[in-house]
């Protein structure tokens, strides 16, 4: 039995009066791959943004790799450095080349020597097959290339956990596959992953478990095969019938 790396207990979060997360409980073991799906506005992004504290929760506990996230967590930067995140809008730094995007955080956050950081960046860019674009700027790349660069950038920090927030939703259809391929490879390498996506093919291929969220609650959580073959709640069935 591998140990828990993420533990969320009765997590509640409000934006003003509006409750986005309602009593969310989630445990993730090392090397587990979890896909989160659910209708738009159901709180999926908020949920995973709470894991690296891009959003603060108001009630409940979140423990990441043994550290509880609270208001006075002094080492929040250290925890964030261990949790990589890939965004829907890529969010590459447009004023830096792809290589500099990848080396910036290793050099300044992890104090890695420049040469070593560049070797690491080259290695990660090779893995996502855009090492030939390293000298270019984000604006000169296609959407699919940008998202793969964003994955490489996150991996350069050698994170223990990777969070993906709808990584393919902003892409043209013909570019989705190249990004998913990179993610599949990452999964095969044994990374702990939480992926918010509607790509059910990807979920079937790599996910250990699938979570369905609606209105800020985890409605259903099941092993992947079970989830697709035998969804229990009506809302899950309705949702699956709409997107499959």
């Amino acid at each position, binding site marked *: 039995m591998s140990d828990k790396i993420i533990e969320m207990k009765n997590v509640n979060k409000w934006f003003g009066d509006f409750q986005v997360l309602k009593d969310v409980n989630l445990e993730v073991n090392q090397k587990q791959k979890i896909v989160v799906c659910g209708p738009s506005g159901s709180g999926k992004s908020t949920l995973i*943004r709470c894991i*690296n504290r*891009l959003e603060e929760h108001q009630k409940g506990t979140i423990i990441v790799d043994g550290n509880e996230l609270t208001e006075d967590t002094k080492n929040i*930067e*250290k925890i*964030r*450095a*261990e*949790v*990589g*995140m890939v*965004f829907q*809008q890529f*969010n*590459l*730094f*447009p*004023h830096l080349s792809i290589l500099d995007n990848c080396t*910036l*955080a290793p050099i*300044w*956050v*992890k104090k890695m020597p420049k040469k070593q950081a560049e070797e690491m960046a080259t290695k990660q860019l090779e893995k996502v097959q855009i090492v030939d674009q390293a000298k270019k*700027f984000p*604006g*000169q790349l296609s959407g699919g290339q940008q998202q793969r660069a*964003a994955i490489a*950038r*996150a991996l350069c*920090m050698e994170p223990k956990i990777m969070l993906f927030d709808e990584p393919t939703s902003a892409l043209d259809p013909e570019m989705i596959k190249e990004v998913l391929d990179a993610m599949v490879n990452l999964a095969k390498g044994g990374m702990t992953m939480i992926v918010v996506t509607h790509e059910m093919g990807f979920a079937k291929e790599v996910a250990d478990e699938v979570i369905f969220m609606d209105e800020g609650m985890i409605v259903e959580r099941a092993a992947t095969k079970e989830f697709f073959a035998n969804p229990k709640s009506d809302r899950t069935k309705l949702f699956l019938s709409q997107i499959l």
Partner: protein
Amino acid sequence: MSKINLLKPDKQNLSTYLYSGSFLFFIAIFDVFLSSFFGINITSFLPNSISFLLPLILGIVGLHLIRIEFSGIKNLDLLNKNINTSTFNAVLTLLIIFTVIKSIPPIMSWFIIDANIAGDTKEACTGSGACWTYIKIWLNRFIYGMYPNELQWRINISFILLIALAFVGLIPSEKIKKFLTLYYVVIYPIIAFILIYYLISGGSLGLEWVETGAWGGLSLTFIVSFFCLIFCFPVGMFLALGRRSELPTLRYISVGFIEFWRGVPLITVLFMSSVMFPMFLPEDFFMDKLVRVIIAISLFEAAYVAEVIRGGLQALPRGQYDAAKSLGMGYWKMHIFVILPQALKLVIPGIANTFLALVKDTPLIFVVGLLEIVGMLNLAKTNPKWLGFAMEGYVFAAIIFWIICYAMSRYSYNLELKYKTER
């Protein structure tokens, strides 16, 4: 050959229309040209009012005749599309051309033809144009103020050194490039201060002390502008960050500071810096007038710079903050490496605007008795030996300021181009 319809020029008789139209147009221009440059009126046989309006009428008819759609002649089509689209536009075009032609001779004669530059007294100026003798005689004062003549080499050397040191950034060495920001933001200003303190001010190292009250003219304009630009930028940047901070105290202090300085006129700030400020200081504490003025202007302009930079910070998408944070960067690393480089790039035009305004505000330091170039002009024009040349002085100052500001504005365009990245 088809029938010629004068009201509707068409392509069939292209050359007929083109030749007659251009002929009339050039006659009109020629008539204005002759009367403007040589005072000859070739249509003096006509009644006065008609003679006066004739060039306009000829021009309108001429432009009407060449207004042929799709003539196939590239330049003609271009002309018709841009400045000859309708009779109204033709009139505007003609009036602008006439105004330019009419105003060249008087300007030329004031500046050059009837102007004087020889001699060295007021009496040498006999022409009806400008008296550049006045500028020539006073030039030394306009540049150095009351700084003693025999010591002016100290100003010259300081400025030459500073200009030379400003070009360090052009050395194409990777080793030096790494430290350029540090050099320009910290080291260069310190060198400038040391040069000005020891060389221009003097008082040690065997150099005679020259009090700041004697400094003046263009060199003072440069000194004040230089230090104010250098100080107001970082202060403004911290105010902008403070105004967006999550710490309420810091935020309120920044807002209060910005709103205070933006709410008072610069002239009162300067006045207070020299009259009220010393009252709050201990008796034996002395701060030079020039230093006080530089601090006052810097704080004043910092408030404007802060708001300009805040605009840039707000223009950045939230995703940039998210991405930087998710990579483990703290507040300062995130701002230094990710946020500020992008925000500052966006606000180069706004910053340039503020800086130009600052340079043009420096003459106001006359209220505390410091006379930069415009102050020296005002002083010189009241000199009994040189009464009546205010115009020359102000034109001279306008030209100097224009050159400085134009150079700055070109520089900011270059920066913009240099840092342009595709989004």
